[in-house]
């Protein structure tokens, strides 16, 4: 690659960089626009004055997000569900993938198929809803986690990672030293699989942070996570009662604040995951390859 390059290579470099830059701008601009709009006067936004820079810079939209009872509660609910759900999911992935990665485990094939079937066939919306109801999980936070069971696709990625990246000799050696299966799991397998764990933690976090459909079906309004709360503002375009009571400037001021909230609440809902994923980005490709190679 380091050899002298012809002019045509240089030209094509320029073309490729140009294409990629244009695509990058197309992807990034809508997000940038929302950020700019969230700190601007909403009427200027709708008048088309904020294509590149904010007008009448203000952080009022953001203080309003956290001053609003329902939005704040939604945010805190989301944090809670994401933390608990992620711990639950990753533990489930690991305790499923580790046994299934042992090629000499009797019944391994049976259990693999047992999980794999759920990827292609399921009871559907209502039968699942009825089981959740019958097991007493309606209006219970655990209805967000348990019905999902094991994320089979991710489990296969983790299992393949164990098989391909943790030397079998090491497990054997631990076994010879009298290390139990559990200890081997905790002392060897978990520390040696940190990259894939990081990826799975991020995948689970994103899934729980962004989920609202499960909460829509199984939870009460006051248990709603952030996305479901902002639905009232974004889709139904209605101001909450708590806002109406805290605003003193009358209807016009309330209207303006509601418009600002549309932008700022979207940013608050999207930002946490956008900040986190670049930290594990370098492991994504590896993880996907591990999943693609059949073990």
């Amino acid at each position, binding site marked *: 690659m380091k050899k002298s390059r012809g002019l045509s290579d240089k030209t094509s*470099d320029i073309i490729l960089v140009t294409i990629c830059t244009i695509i990058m701008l197309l992807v990034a601009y809508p997000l940038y626009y929302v950020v700019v709009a969230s700190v601007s006067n909403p009427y200027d936004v709708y008048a088309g004055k904020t294509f590149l820079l904010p007008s009448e810079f203000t952080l009022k939209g953001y203080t309003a997000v956290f001053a609003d009872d329902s939005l704040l509660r939604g945010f805190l609910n989301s944090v809670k569900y994401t933390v608990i759900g992620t711990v639950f999911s990753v533990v489930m992935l690991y305790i499923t993938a580790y046994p299934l990665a042992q090629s000499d485990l009797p019944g391994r094939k049976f259990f693999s198929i047992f999980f794999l079937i759920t990827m292609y066939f399921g*009871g559907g919306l209502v039968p699942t*809803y009825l089981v959740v109801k019958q097991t007493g999980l309606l209006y219970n936070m655990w209805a967000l986690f348990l019905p999902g069971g*094991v994320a089979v696709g991710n489990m296969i990625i983790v299992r393949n990672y164990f098989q391909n990246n943790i030397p079998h000799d090491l497990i054997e050696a631990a*076994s*010879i030293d009298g290390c139990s*299966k559990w200890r081997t799991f905790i002392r060897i397998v978990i520390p040696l699989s940190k990259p894939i764990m990081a990826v799975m933690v991020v995948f689970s976090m994103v899934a729980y942070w*962004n989920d609202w459909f499960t909460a829509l079906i199984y939870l009460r309004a006051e248990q709603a996570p952030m996305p479901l709360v902002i639905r009232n503002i974004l889709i139904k375009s209605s101001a909450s009662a708590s806002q109406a009571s805290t605003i003193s400037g009358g209807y016009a001021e309330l209207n303006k604040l509601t418009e600002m909230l549309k932008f700022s609440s979207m940013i608050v809902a999207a930002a946490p995951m*956008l900040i986190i994923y670049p930290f594990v980005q370098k492991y994504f490709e590896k993880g996907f390859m591990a999943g693609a190679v059949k073990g």
Partner: protein
Amino acid sequence: MNEAISKKPVRVGKPLKTRLLNNWQLYLLLLIPVVITFIYKYIPMYGIQIAFRDYKASRGYLGSEWVGFDWFTRFFNAPTFGRMIKNTILLSFYSLLWSFPVPIILSLCINQLRFKRYQRVVQTVLYAPHFISTMVICGMLRIFLSPSGGLINLLLGTQVDFLTQSSAFRTIYIASGIWQDAGWGCIIYLATLSNVDTSLYEAAKVDGASVFQRIMNVDVPALLPMAILNLIMSAGSLMNVGFEKVWLLQTELNKATSDVIAVYVYQQGIENAKYSYSTAVGLFNTVINLVLLFVVNKIASKTSDVGIV
């Protein structure tokens, strides 16, 4: 206990009982996910029978009256049946048609970027929308497409209310889908390309091949098997239009194209509590999906050596 069997790396020779006992800790670990999966995945499959019964909660699954295919007949005779089938298939077919090639072309470009740091930046930016909730995506769409001051109307200098036009719905759905997930879809292709033997590039260069020729003769053949596999998987879920985005973008006025089966299942089952009817509609959809998956997979395993089930 472990010391007794540790001498042999492969324990196949041991009697089954010993092997089961040696692994009791592993079975105990597996017990938890197996029980949860059984309750929340397999019992609902058993519950599918309510599609053939007139389910009453007080009577339970088996106690409810058997009605055979009544619910299915009712669905086939529903006034919007034809529309829903057509919309579901077309939305997903056009999605596949437009969304499938984009990640392939993108990854071919990104892979040829020589400045690795810049390549990283491009990837980071392109992945970003994938990590945003559909709720936020649809919120953005609603604002951007608004007739009064929406970004799209501002740029076009028009005042069109796109979400009330059924002719615009598919375009909105598919274009925003590409915006959100085309970048993320590159990962698997980029991973494949990173495994291409660099000596092939060197050889191509010695032969005087241009960048474009290298892409066509080295990268494209390397991507082909993965692309075919992806196409098979998507074709198998042709009736599997997601509920979330359609539901959030649906308005009374664009229903002519946005009325799909998934939304109907939700409305009938959860909003109207017509449990048996909704289950029947859902089952109809699932069965068609499974048949498609098997057919497509059969064709694929006959014509090439890639297959999934």
